[in-house]
């Protein structure tokens, strides 16, 4: 088993240097259970397949001699019925016994995160004391070794919340709230993607997940709670002003500036995120500028119109200002 796993992992590394999306690179309690289960199933499946093919070739190549009917009956009943019954009974027992753990809710008092899917991004909400929440988008941070409870919903069509390295996927269905809980076990940067076909840009709905120590997590959440700092330099003031006058605030909230926009992702701390556009472009001024100018080219049929009619300098000022919203 170990040998097999090592060889396969070698093959994996050969084709992928980067395991941020990999279900075989588990960093969460659920993903670990499933990855271990996979290796067992994979090994057994290979064994059974080899057995079958050897048997198949034997039956084809063997010269027919006198055969006892009893022996064939043994083959059919033994190989066709008894063998699968035994294998499947064992497999049902071992594979379904972890199921309760996988679908169990996190203990009372655990961190809860609400995520809702929308075409084609993720709205993320962390609780702030009682009945208060802070809204973020497209990036989730989790403290390591602490159970987390996700509440998942959808704002339009069906999406599916999948961070392969941490846990299996759960669908986000309009009119329902689905749940997912697990414990991240390794710090690191992981990524996820929408797994349910959700329209034109389904391929461009990704998610960044950071698993960090509790202390780092607290610092991060504290920072995210704060409103955005007001623009201080003339250049950033130009950006901020253009952001308001161009109408961006009618869709996007930047806490401290305007909380009117609820349609699009919250941009209060956009500069602190790893990627923009729901996990598709590296976060830097150039990308932000490109996004403002070529929105629909980067992400077909996205709701946000391209703001290529703004003077180029204004586009640049906005992106520089946004990049500063750390």
């Amino acid at each position: 088993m170990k040998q097999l796993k090592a060889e396969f992992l070698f093959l994996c590394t050969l084709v992928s240097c980067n395991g941020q999306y990999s279900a075989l690179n588990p960093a969460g309690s659920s993903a670990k259970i499933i990855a271990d289960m996979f290796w067992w199933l994979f090994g057994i499946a290979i064994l059974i397949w080899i057995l079958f093919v050897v048997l198949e070739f034997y039956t084809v190549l063997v010269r027919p001699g006198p055969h006892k009917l009893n022996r064939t009956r043994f083959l059919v009943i033994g190989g066709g019925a008894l063998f699968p019954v035994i294998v499947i009974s064992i497999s049902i027992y071992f594979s379904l016994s972890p199921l309760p753990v996988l679908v169990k809710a996190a203990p009372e008092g655990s961190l809860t995160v609400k995520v809702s899917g929308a075409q084609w991004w993720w709205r993320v909400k962390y609780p702030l004391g009682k009945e208060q929440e802070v809204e973020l988008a497209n990036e989730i941070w989790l403290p390591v070794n602490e159970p987390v409870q996700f509440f998942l919903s959808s704002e339009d069509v069906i999406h599916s919340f999948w961070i392969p390295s941490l846990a299996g996927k759960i669908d986000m269905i309009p009119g329902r709230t689905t749940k997912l809980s697990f414990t991240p076990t390794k710090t690191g940067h992981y990524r996820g993607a929408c797994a349910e076909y959700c329209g034109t840009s389904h391929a461009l709905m990704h998610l960044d997940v950071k698993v960090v120590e509790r202390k780092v997590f607290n610092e991060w959440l504290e920072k995210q709670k704060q409103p955005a700092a007001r623009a201080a330099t003339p250049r950033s003031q130009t950006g901020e002003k253009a952001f308001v006058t161009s109408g961006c605030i009618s869709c996007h909230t930047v806490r401290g500036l305007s909380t009117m926009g609820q349609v699009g992702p919250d941009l209060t701390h956009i500069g602190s995120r790893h990627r923009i556009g729901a996990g598709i472009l590296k976060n830097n001024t150039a990308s932000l500028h490109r996004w403002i100018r070529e929105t629909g080219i980067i992400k077909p049929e996205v709701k946000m119109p391209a703001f290529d009619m703004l003077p180029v300098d204004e586009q640049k000022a906005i992106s520089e200002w946004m990049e500063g919203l750390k």
Partner: protein
Amino acid sequence: MEEVKDRIRQEEEKRLNKAWRVPSGWRYWSEVNNSEVGMWYTVTSLAFFFFAGVLALLIRVQLAVPDNNFLTAEQYNQIFTMHGTVMMFLFAIPIFEAISILLLPQMLGARDLPFPRLSAYGYWCFLLGGIFVCGSLFFGAAPKGGWFMYPPLTTSYQPGVGADIWLLGLTFIEIASIAASVELIVGILKCRPPGMRINLIPIYAWYILVVAIMILFAFPPLIAGDILLEMERAFNWPFFDASRGGDPLLWQHLFWIFGHPEVYIIFLPSIALLATIIPTFARVPLIGYSWVVLSAVGTGFLSFGLWVHHMFTTGLPGISLGIFSAASQAVAIPTGVQLFCFLATLLIGRSVKAVPMLFAIGGLATFVIGGLTGVMLAIAPFNFQAHDSFFIVGHLHYVLIGGSVFPILAGIYYYAPIIIGKKLSDKLGKICFWLVLIGFNVTFFPMHASGLLGMPRRIYTYSDDMGVSTLNLISSIGAFILGTGFLVLLWDLLRPKGKLSYSERNPWKAGTLEWSMKIPDRMWGIRSIPMIKSRYPLWEQPNFIHDVDNGHFYLPDAAEVMRETLVTSTLDAKPVQCLRVPGPTFITHLAALFSGGFFIFATYHWWVATTISGILAMATIIYWLWTGSAWIPEKEEKDVGLGVTLPIYQSGPHAVGWWAMFITMLADLTAFISLIFGYFFYWTIQQNFPPEDSVGPGIFWPVTGALLISLSWLLTKLAKKLNNQDKAILFYGILLLAVFCSLAGALAFLAGPLKYQMDPTHHVYEATVWILVIWTALHAALGALMQLYCMARRLGKKMTAKYDADITNVSLYESFIAITGLITAMVIAGFPAAS
């Protein structure tokens, strides 16, 4: 003496020839005989296979490298939707119906299937619907909701005509599929040769019987779902809109109640081909015949209880996950039995080397990989990761190509001598096999890895940091190797074969009945319908071919120059009727054209054209039935040879028409039960169902409706009796009363929701009541039309006291409608009152 016999034989053949002559020139296309229709059907579904294959290559080009822009997102989404849709609905199901229509009569020693015009109608519907659905791609208007069409993406978020084309175009094709399955079931149950008792039925026919019955119960839930989804798209009835009480998951249930059996509907006929081919090359009868039959039946049953494993990630409770997980794994057991019966047959037998065997052996080895990953996926925890990832794409292609396409290729090489009279090339066959085998594995094996590395399905692009670029490039290279393999097959099929000599008779030395055909085959099919005493008559019945050829069995002659075949009893195959089947006609084309018009115009919401087309379709079908069914024969009985005299006309359970009605109504009732399932599904997921601010249809009108419809049924039964007693006046009177009751019942059902002004767009409750009421009312109205038809038949001297098939079948129809009416009333009036 010999000379006289020879002359008699020649006279017989002349008459047979005349009866079964294929029209020439442009009238060729009016032929309805199974050999021609089956051939067109096969060629058409293969054409759709190649079309969808080209779409697959486009997909692989787009995914060959990261961030590719060979296709736009919009194009890619249309193409992957069409690839799945065409492969499933225009290739995988039709090809099995095509092969069965083509070969079953030969396997059963019948001259034709019982309803040749129904086969032809089904074919023309399939062709028309297929071209309509595929054509949309060239106008950029193709469906793009995936072959699974999940709402609400496909309701409010895709305003174009694409989703309507999918819903209506495919409903049209599904109806044609159900027509074909009715034909196949009745064919297998009633058109077997004398002596072919239930334990001697060819293994292929057993499988087809199982699969056709599965279609009967699997397609109607999808048709019901299609109706609901289209009602939401066209008229804003909120079946899947969560804000008005609807639920997107209802679609998923209905879709997968169809979709899972669908997998076995595709897989079992191909396994049936293997079960026919393997014994031939092993030169021994199939080992474990009854085991294989029971396994096929068992797989069919089980397949209806597994659909939830397509929904493991929708947040269902753990207990459902566990139960459906275990049930899904259990299906490996009957599958294992079938495979091991094949292995046992090969073990005992000689295994002659031949191209069909290559495909059979390669197919089994490939399929087992898909079966094993299938067992893995049935395990809910593993499914949480693998679901909707490329792992699934790998798995499903191993199952469908290994379990279905390989056996079909084996079948093409195996049956070529019967179908085109010539053997295909061994050399090209081998090249094709190796290219397909290697190309297939290179394409699809890496997908298991890319899925587990985090690549979701149905994405039009991916970035390099996903870490799946190399794997995808390998898959794309494999796809082109695979494509080359299919090109070789295409060349082998299409290359000019004029110089090639005809194959010898029974070139593979098979033991099954279809190989008693002369090559090239004669239009009349089998020379005389044999008495069967074995599963492998060519091996085990002495002098068999000689006796068939010399007309020593049944129906060696067509004395009245009419197309005739034998009908036998269901279980023990005792001859009960000499059935006359109708010949060439263009009426089926018109019927298909108008039925197609009905669905196609509805797609564009051209309601006037839709209505006109629907009425014309109805009129054409009535004309078709009027002229082409239940002919009153010139004599009661006829000598069919071997001293047996059989009636020419039958009604009731001995008649094929009665069976067709019964089977069709089972499918119809299944669609209705699916709608009822919807009602109770909403009830289980909602606190208040019916909601407080909704009004119901009351109790009076639904109950009145149900009583009137039931009364109409009783009156029809009475009218049937009066017809038998030749009391004409009373017959007309009572039947007229029945017509009145049917129509009044239909109106009474509609009156309930109308009187209480139920608004179907307000909440899913109102919409559900309306849909049940409309369904019932339409069926009752159709019943009235049928009752009028019976009156006209008697007036037109097409039906008499003795020859009463029409009223017998309508009475059967009415009994189903009475059940429908009673259930509707109980649900819409009784349920809210009781709860």
